[in-house]
């Protein structure tokens, strides 16, 4: 068993705009190293005052508490900006860390980005 995609290069796969919403697609593994890049990107995105920011985590196969901390920080920032933060496509393992830290009810979590855009 090997995992050749564990190196967190380009953890931010794409940033897309959909009307007044921003969709940030993440991929790979989010840890202390890669979460710093995501934090900077959130700062940049929220400065544009989007209606909502949707974080597509379908291709995220690992996340530790550094990543969780960045998402909590982004959630707080979204509330200050009157924006919404939505998470989509969480794998079972990634969802697990939210549950361990009792944060699964704090975030708006959807199965797909389309669902998140509709609501």
């Amino acid at each position, binding site marked *: *068993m*090997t*995992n050749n995609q*564990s*190196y*967190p290069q380009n953890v931010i796969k794409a940033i897309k705009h959909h009307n007044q919403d921003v969709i940030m697609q993440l991929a790979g*593994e989010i*840890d*202390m*190293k890669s979460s710093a890049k995501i934090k900077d990107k959130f700062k940049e995105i929220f400065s544009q005052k989007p209606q909502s920011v949707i974080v597509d985590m379908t291709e995220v196969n*690992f996340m*530790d*508490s*550094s990543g*969780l*901390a*960045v998402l*909590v*920080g982004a959630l707080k920032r979204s509330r200050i900006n009157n924006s919404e933060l939505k998470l989509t496509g969480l794998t*079972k*393992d990634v969802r*697990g*860390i939210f549950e*361990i*830290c*009792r*944060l699964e009810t*704090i975030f708006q979590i959807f199965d797909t980005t389309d669902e998140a855009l509709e609501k």
Partner: protein
Amino acid sequence: MLSQTNRPIMKNDTKKQNSSMNTKVELHICANPDYLCVARSAVRQVAYISGLEKNETEQLTLAVVEALTNVIRHSYGGPSDKPIIIKFNKINCPDGKKPALEIVIRDFGKQVDPKTIEGRNLDDIKPGGVGVHIMQSVMDKTEFKKAEDCGMLLRMIKYIE
């Protein structure tokens, strides 16, 4: 027998030999987040060889990464070239004699009283500070100890069902 520096050369030290024979894998990395992915790969391979299921493997990986991140942040005060040693052993636990994967993480940084290391209150929703809670939640045992000279030892156990 003494070396040129008059320090004893430890030969055939049974205790030392036994501990290195029991250690199946030993990984040395420097305290830099760039190398967390190396540790993850190692954990996953060792877990696979040891017979852990996928979800247990990912829990183990998470616990190890949380531990290493804490060492980088707190023991060493940030990224550096200082060493972290990770040892993996497959053991039979004396209590119930279940086989288990034991992971020992050794750093050479700040020493703290192990009793002060605990997870924080999760009702206070704020970024950070949940690494210890996560380790204790996903591992069957976690134990912090001060190492002999400097730094800390963290021993974690995951039973292999």
